[in-house]
């Protein structure tokens, strides 16, 4: 899709539909996600309680910036979370992410909800509640492990 054709919902077949995405937490991960989604033509609202973090958004970010504590229902409402197609919770506080994700999914009925959870133990419990989580520790460990085992296999193959 070229950058000058704004995608529209229910547009021509083959075009990616525009999604309305709420990104909670605008740190390194959140700002990167919000910037990429905005560049892909999606409508994005980035929420953070520290407005300084909005400086991390790409210069061509065309979404909304909302300052506030997403653990407060009023803030999520202000972000029009009930109308969102997707919500991604990426604050540095696992518990905020888990609460926001549950509110989005169980109260607002947001169809696609993802939460970053640093603590692998907490991740297991919430997987049982049907909350989709991504644990950077687990993901990184898996990547490191496969890289190490592949490296070892290459070394073995290269060995005389």
């Amino acid at each position, binding site marked *: 899709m070229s950058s000058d054709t704004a995608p529209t919902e229910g547009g021509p077949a083959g075009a990616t539909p525009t999604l309305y995405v709420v990104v909670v937490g605008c740190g390194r991960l959140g700002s990167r996600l919000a910037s990429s989604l905005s560049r892909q033509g999606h409508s994005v609202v980035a929420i953070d309680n520290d407005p300084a973090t909005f400086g991390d958004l790409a210069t061509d970010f065309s979404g909304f910036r909302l300052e506030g504590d997403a*653990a407060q229902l009023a803030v999520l409402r202000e972000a029009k979370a009930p109308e969102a197609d997707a919500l991604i919770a990426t604050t540095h*506080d*696992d*518990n905020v992410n888990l609460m926001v994700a549950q509110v989005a999914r*169980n*109260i607002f009925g947001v169809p696609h909800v993802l939460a970053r959870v640093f*603590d692998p133990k*907490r991740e297991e*419990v919430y997987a049982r509640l049907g909350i989709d989580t991504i644990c950077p520790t687990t993901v990184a460990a898996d990547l490191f492990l496969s890289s190490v085992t592949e490296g070892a296999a290459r070394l073995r193959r290269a060995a005389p």
Partner: protein
Amino acid sequence: MRALIVGGGTTVYFLCRDFASKGHEVVVVNRDERECVRLARQLPATVVCGDGSDASVLGDAGARSADVVLALTPNDQDNLVICQLASLQFGVPRTLALANDPDNVAVLHKLGVPAFSMTDVVSTIIEQRATTDQITNLLPVGEGRVIVTEVRLDDASPALGRSLEDVALPANALVAAIMRDDDVIVPHGSSCLNSGDRLLLVTQPDNHAAVLRALTGERR
């Protein structure tokens, strides 16, 4: 009863002291090391230092054998996760979370965690006390959806000498008992009201004021 309380500050201190004096076994979880040392010195309770929303800390604090977990930290998201971990991971039969933001009482309920708001409780009491001084007791139950009140009828009551069915009480309100001298009367529609009667009322927030008006008259 074995109670596990997560939080700190004076409220938690006095709550623990009260529970302990009633013979309950109390475990306090607090993440601040200095506060833990102080609590351990002052309370006949086990004090565990750590993050109460960390499953291993809850486990160390004996969550598996706790009868009730109270999450009273200043952060609603922490209180939610503490209670969910307690019930999901450790099978604690009863949990209760403090909702610092009154809006979160409903949110936590919908997420399966019983919760209460200090703001709601205190403001209800203050509002009711401000409207009449005849209220001697007031207890919000069912997370504030039901109010149990004790009201004394004085000579200015418009309900004196009338039977309960003649006093037009709003729907969904009940005079549960009439305390007259040394007697306790469980009233019928034909029971008459006298000056000096103390009534035990069961009301709801939306009809509470109207019930008080019907029984004690307009005030202020």
